[in-house]
């Protein structure tokens, strides 16, 4: 099989490729930096440097923690959201369903209702501080 001798090194292409990939974003960034450094006067200010909060004066620190309790709500919501997706085709095909499919969906519902009862009785649905 003839080897293409025009290519000096098969990896040369990769090196050029990486070089261009690095230079491509760096050149505009450098131009913007030069522009800011030598041509456009910087105009910092009190409200320009302030934290953006939809135009309001920002209150409190920007980094806040969410309670882990919120996570429980999310998971329970997700489960019943998926249940609703399964219930829609069940309701559409309800009159033409064989007994086996009907029983299957009832078992599915019973499992979910059981989970809801368990979550409710364990106080997962009431918000406590």
């Amino acid at each position: 099989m003839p080897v293409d001798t025009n290519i000096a090194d098969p990896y040369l292409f990769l090196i050029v490729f990486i070089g261009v990939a690095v230079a491509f974003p760096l050149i505009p960034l450098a131009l913007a930096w030069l522009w800011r450094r030598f041509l456009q006067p910087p105009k910092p200010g009190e409200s320009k440097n302030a934290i953006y909060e939809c135009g309001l004066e920002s209150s409190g620190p920007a980094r806040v923690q969410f309670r882990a309790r919120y996570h429980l709500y999310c998971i329970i919501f997700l489960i019943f959201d998926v249940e609703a997706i399964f219930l829609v085709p069940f309701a559409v095909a309800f009159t033409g369903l064989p007994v086996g499919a009907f029983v299957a969906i009832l078992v599915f519902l019973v499992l979910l209702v059981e989970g809801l009862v368990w979550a409710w009785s364990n106080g997962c649905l009431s918000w406590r501080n």
Partner: protein
Amino acid sequence: MENRPQIDEKLKNEVSKQGIVVTSLQEIYNWGRRSSIWPMQFGLACCAIEMIAAAAARYDMARFGSEVFRSSPRQADLMIVAGTVTKKMAPLVVRLYNQMADPKYVIAMGACAISGGPFKDGYNVLKGIDRYIPVDVYISGCPPRPEALLHALIELQHKIDGQQLTGPSRAEFLDPEQPSEFPIPALGKHDLEPPANTALFRPPSIQRD
């Protein structure tokens, strides 16, 4: 137009017929800026509905490079004051304008943003946003049609095209003396305090006998 090109206009036309494009740094810079004016996603009242229509498929603001409505003032070039500015909202509008990076432009869209419009006599309505921030283009209408907003955008593009980068009549954002921020009014006991930014607008004094 203030713009004085460095190359003779006739010579430029002659050369371009031969397939050679002559330009200057100023022209390229202004062309780039005017072709990508990113507005801030910011609506105040019913004019905002027309602004949304102008950005959507039928009127298609993307033809002018302005489809990228930014949700942060840090990334926006243009503030479209679309609608009635209440006295409660005015401090927020001015603070958002202050938080935009230079160069920045303002379009006052509709009768309310220009002068208070039909709600001018209301106790809570600002009589024109140009009392607090410098406005580049005014559009009349209540609300203006999307075509009018596009026209305002084209006018703004013309303005940017004519902005000088050097010399005594250079653009405001290149002049260190020109302010980039304006005082934020606060809601006082009876009215906004101060009633206007004196650098931009002085309210006429009322003569009583």
